[in-house]
């Protein structure tokens, strides 16, 4: 049953990735990433863990839900409202293409990651492959979206991938490191949001098209 729950969570993570790839509205994307954040935070609770660290795990899960499921989405929603961006206009790649890409990556990582020589370390190969798929999908979103909020969300997906991977194969980081990681993420998002506000001020829109004067 526990195994099934782990698989279910990974599956939902994959589906939420695909949802993020296919959705054009920033509001929907923020919802999607909040959902994913909460799911991730639940992951450690279902691990067959050493009972000594149960308190640590609970603290971590609560903190992670608060940051990934509540605070960051709240910030993003606020900045979205502030800059009045609703819709992603013409991403570099179409949504259907993105979704198909997401599917292929998910299947591919499931197929290949399972064959890596150190997979015996991971708690469930399914989680690990979901993590690698998320990593690639996160980078894909960053690369193919023009909207800055969408790029931030891509970055979050990417970060989440690290989180899943950390949980599924290396679960013995000390608590203060884990908290440091979360706080770093939070700080990173906060300054990205500040940057978005500034960018909105200067460019009057938040599509990265207008951020292309420095090329060469």
């Amino acid at each position, binding site marked *: 049953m526990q195994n099934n729950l782990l698989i279910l969570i990974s599956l939902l993570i994959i589906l939420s990735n695909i949802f993020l790839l296919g959705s054009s*509205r920033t509001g*929907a994307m923020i919802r999607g990433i909040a959902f994913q954040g909460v799911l991730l935070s639940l992951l450690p609770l279902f691990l067959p863990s050493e009972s000594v660290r149960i308190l640590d795990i609970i603290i971590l899960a609560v903190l992670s839900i608060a940051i990934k499921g509540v605070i960051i989405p709240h910030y993003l929603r606020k900045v979205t409202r502030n800059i009045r961006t*609703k819709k992603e206009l013409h991403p570099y790649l179409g949504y259907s293409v993105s979704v198909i890409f997401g599917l292929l990556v998910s299947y591919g990582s499931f197929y290949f990651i399972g064959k890596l020589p150190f997979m015996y370390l991971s708690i469930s190969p399914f989680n690990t492959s979901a993590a690698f798929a998320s990593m690639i999908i996160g980078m894909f979103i960053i690369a193919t979206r023009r909207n800055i909020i969408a790029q931030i969300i891509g970055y979050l997906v990417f970060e989440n991938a690290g989180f899943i991977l950390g949980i599924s194969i290396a679960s013995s980081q000390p608590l203060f490191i884990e908290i440091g990681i979360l706080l770093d993420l939070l700080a990173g998002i906060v300054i990205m949001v500040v940057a978005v506000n500034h960018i909105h001020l200067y460019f009057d829109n938040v599509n990265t098209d207008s951020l292309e004067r420095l090329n060469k």
Partner: protein
Amino acid sequence: MKESSLIIKYNKSNPTSKVPLLGEDVFRKKVLEMTRGGGRVNSFFSAENDNEDLVLYLIISYDARGETHALSMKVENKAFKSLTNEDTQFHLFEREIYEQSGIRPLGHPWLKPVRFPGGNAGEMDFFKIEGREIHEVAVGPIHAGIIEPGHFRFQCHGETVYHLETSHGYQHRGIEKKLTGGPYRDTVYKMGVIAGDSTVAHSTAYAQIMEAFTRTAIPARAQAVRAIALELERCANHIGDIGALSGDIGYLSTSAYCGRIRGDFLNMSALLCGNRFSRGLVLPGGVGADIDDDIREQLAARLEAGKKDFLSAASLLWETPSVLARFDSTGIISAESAERIKMVGPAARACGIERDVRRDHPSGYYHLSYIPVSTSEMGDVSSRAYVRWLEVQESIKFIEKLLAELPVGDSGRETGTNLKPDSITVSLIEGWRGELCHTALTDGTGRFRRYKIVDPSFHNWLGLALAMRGGQISDFPVCNKSFNLSYCGFDL
């Protein structure tokens, strides 16, 4: 050449002789200069003068300066050079002039009937796109829902609309013609039904015109009651529209609740004057019903309840992703197009154009109390709904303020029956659909020589057609509802 236009004071009548009568070339030059300088045509119509010569009158206003100008032009040989090619906003006015007086705008690109006064509504050359894969869809004049008659002709390629042409005239009642020679005893009632949902707006415009002609100053209390009634009308209609919009996209809760809340607001109007659509409330010289303390308290209480209900029912819309996904980017009209055809009202404000008669050309109580202009930016269905949502909140706030500071005094007095002869006056009111403009000219005996009404729908129907371009034909109903234009107000 310096004083080639007359600045109109809204609550005063002006001798018609003071409106400069220009030759065609001077007029043309002057008008184009004015429109280029930000002038917006409120009304453009033909009238006869004492010698039964045809004269074209143009009412044009500068929103930024809050000025309204009038000028006129002598017509020779029943024709003049069309201005449409220079500025799109003349297009429909010139068609109307041609239809009403036979004055031909030479070189008009699209000279067709507007209201079919002789019957045969809908029989005309529709714009057609040729091509094997283009198909035409004709909708109306009889629709599946209970709405007014109007004909829509779509040029489609698959589901995509290339062009929409609207054709009206099914409700042409000849109101303007019937007003000539007035005012009669039933004129004020006719005003109430120009567009049945804008009774207060049209009646107020008429009342202001009568007051200007008879030099009646009406008490502040009556003005406050008019403003309250106008804002109540705005609330009721906007709420109804928000409900209808959500009904069109199958979002039931908001639809059902807003339908009821609209009723609540109509009942507030009924509380004021006994009629849910405020018929007979606004009369020349004042208002037909006063607000006593009892009504005032009841109204405040009901308003509070209505506000609460509305906020909870309509805020659902902005929190439901599927609703936003449906509304967003549907029926976009760009700010440039909207500015070019000079749209008015919430539809224009949804494109980010700050145009509101209550602020730009205030009259009545709006002189004394300011109501913020609500705008949105995207110009899509979502923005139009959002502007309504904002406006309802502002209106409620405004009514609350007015109820709290209701001036003491009479609720009205008699206007004289002697209208100032040979005069012109203009009245601009921001109805819930947008600016409506009444212009009246009196003859030597103090009767109406010409009474010209421009309903906001007159400006905005073309906007709907433009909003549909490149859109999906299945988006038409929701797009149409987001404009919610009047058929009878257009057809007059």
